[in-house]
């Protein structure tokens, strides 16, 4: 009877975007992007939730026990690992920005040409 988890996902996405727009530091920006991305985990997992459902792992519980959707869990699982490596790539770009432009403020970077 509740839409709260979905609304939470929307909220996390919105605050993440707000952080990206207001960011004054590339490292901070990457963290905000990770926050925005984590809203997808909340959304996926809450869509797949089944009331009083257990984890879709039937090692200790008999087959046929009510369980949550394994597909969205699988998507979230790979998403988490990949998002960390993408964040690492972006942080490497931030290091390059510091090296070449001597700043990690996105506003100052946009004024540089070449």
């Amino acid at each position, binding site marked *: 009877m509740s839409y709260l988890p979905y609304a939470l996902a929307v909220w996390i996405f919105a605050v993440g975007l707000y952080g990206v727009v207001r960011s004054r530091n590339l490292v901070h920006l990457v963290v905000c992007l990770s926050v925005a991305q984590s809203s997808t985990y909340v959304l996926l997992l809450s*869509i797949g939730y089944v009331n009083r459902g257990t984890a879709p792992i039937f*090692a200790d519980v008999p087959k046929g026990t009510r369980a949550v959707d394994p597909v969205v869990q699988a998507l979230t699982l790979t998403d988490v690992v990949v998002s960390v490596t993408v964040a690492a790539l972006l942080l490497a770009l931030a290091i390059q920005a510091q090296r070449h432009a001597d700043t990690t403020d996105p506003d100052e970077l946009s004024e540089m040409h070449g």
Partner: protein
Amino acid sequence: MSRGVRSGLFLVSAAGLTALLLWAVADLPDFGHYRGPYGKVLNSVAVGERHTTNVVAAVVFDYRGVDTMGEEFILFASVMGVALLLRNPHRERRQVPVRIQSDAVRLAGIGFAAGLLVLGLYVVAHGYLTPGGGFQGGVVLASAFVLVYLAGDYHAYRSMSPTPAIDVLGATGAGGYTVVGIVSLLLGSAFLHNFGPLGTTGKLASGGSIPFLNVASALEVSAAFVLLFSEFLDELVVRPKARSE
């Protein structure tokens, strides 16, 4: 565009976007009243069809195996990108001081690292039976290496994770996943279609080709995380002079 104008513009458009998103999710099924057919179907057939008790692992390495291969290559490409951006063969190494002087900390750290390594191997090996798998176990394995750096020092960490060897391990993981898919093709079924004996449900020898894909992804994920950590750690030992290159 000034920051004030940009923020104003953002607040207006974000309010619109948030309203639209809230409107969209209001039509989703109530929380806890999942209506999608795939999850229910998989939960009822996967254990019988694949003899794996962890249905999430069966989805990752079998029913949606091609999707996972895509994810693996995103991971591979971004780690390659990090290496490309940060790796500099001409940089001069600076002597890194040994920070940890306490033998007790070293001993505890090495003990925890060994335990973490075993835990990582356990999580990988039982990935398709109990909660865990190549992705989760790979990260645990990589964190054992990080603990060596924390409790030991840079040189201890580097001698445990020589970059050429880690490069080869990561590539083996990514390539191995594809090779398993090609073997399916050679056997006359679809790419990444499960093959091999399914074994006994609940035993380590089960799941057909799922264990191979599981180990391949564990190799790739652990190598990727160790490599990322090495690349960022190497930034510490770059001489400030070399930075302007």
